[in-house]
């Protein structure tokens, strides 16, 4: 491949569920103060896949998030946030399919309301049922290589290990596990949850992740539109650095200036 090809996102697409995405940043819509800010941040991020959720109707709510997202032409990725059982997650996914006319689902089955960490057995159970039902399943999972393998075996379209708890902004607490998941997976690996700022996203991509999903780090920042750009650039530069092949870390210095020909005074 020509060197030039490495530098354009279009020549290096992320492929999930048979669909190509030139942007490797998935954007979560939770936490934005207004639909206007959300829309501007999505545009600034260049993201082509955007999450949303289902909740009971509120007769007083104004503006439609679906209309706003449709106008941007992004792929809608409904989630099952707030589900604590496989049964609830499967039903929520089916309702999302009905509401948004899509087979794509970001599968979350949570095991604890303070940690918001995945319940692995329930996640596997829900994933299996949804794959059988024809969904394109993108599960939010622990940074555990074995669970990731099981999800791949079930037929998930991607696996989305967490960097640290949802909304914590704590970055990547176990980069070695993420690297192992990436090295052993045959499906795309999307870092999900924990990103706090651009360098976290860049690190995930440098480790080899295929993409990054980011919500709170952008939506709850002081300037979401600027942070959307920053994190998008972090994703892009991390991807380039991964493909460029970094130098190995070494304990001692290695001069870059040749020693040969050094004058002796």
């Amino acid at each position, binding site marked *: 491949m020509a060197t030039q090809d490495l530098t354009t996102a279009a020549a290096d697409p992320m492929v999930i569920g048979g669909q190509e995405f030139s942007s490797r940043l998935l954007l979560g819509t*939770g936490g934005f103060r207004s639909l206007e800010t959300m829309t501007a941040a999505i545009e600034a991020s260049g993201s082509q896949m955007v999450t949303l959720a*289902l909740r009971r109707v509120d*007769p007083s709510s104004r503006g439609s998030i679906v209309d706003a997202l449709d106008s941007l032409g992004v792929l809608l990725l409904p989630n099952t946030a707030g589900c604590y059982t496989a049964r609830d997650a499967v*039903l929520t996914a089916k*309702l999302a399919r*009905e*509401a948004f006319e899509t087979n794509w689902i970001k599968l979350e089955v949570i095991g604890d309301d303070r940690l918001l960490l995945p319940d692995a057995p329930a996640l596997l159970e829900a994933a299996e049922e949804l794959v059988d039902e024809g969904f394109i399943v993108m599960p939010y999972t622990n940074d555990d290589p074995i669970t990731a393998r099981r999800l791949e075996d079930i037929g998930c379209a991607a696996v989305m290990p967490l960097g640290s708890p949802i909304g914590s902004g704590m970055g990547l607490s176990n980069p070695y596990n993420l690297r192992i998941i990436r090295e052993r997976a045959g499906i795309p690996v999307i870092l999900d949850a924990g990103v706090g700022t651009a360098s976290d996203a860049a690190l995930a991509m440098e480790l080899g992740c295929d993409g990054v999903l980011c919500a709170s780090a952008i939506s709850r920042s002081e300037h979401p539109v600027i942070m959307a750009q920053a994190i998008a650039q972090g994703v892009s530069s991390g991807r380039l650095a991964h493909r460029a092949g970094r130098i190995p870390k070494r304990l001692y210095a290695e001069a870059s200036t040749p020693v040969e020909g050094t004058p002796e005074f």
Partner: protein
Amino acid sequence: MKVTINGTDTELRTGATVQAAIDSLALPAQGRGVAVAVDAEVVPRGQWESTLLEEGSRVEVLRAIQGG
């Protein structure tokens, strides 16, 4: 008859449809992004007018929100 709509006990006439339950919420015009479950089963949009509720039916009417 009494049904539960989004957790609230509601009186509807006997033989009311899913559509009647939705109408009782007096929502603004709904397009894409709304889904309904009755007793933990999805009711597709095309069946809202024809699906009858029963005494005690639990209806969940959901819409898209920001999240994830």
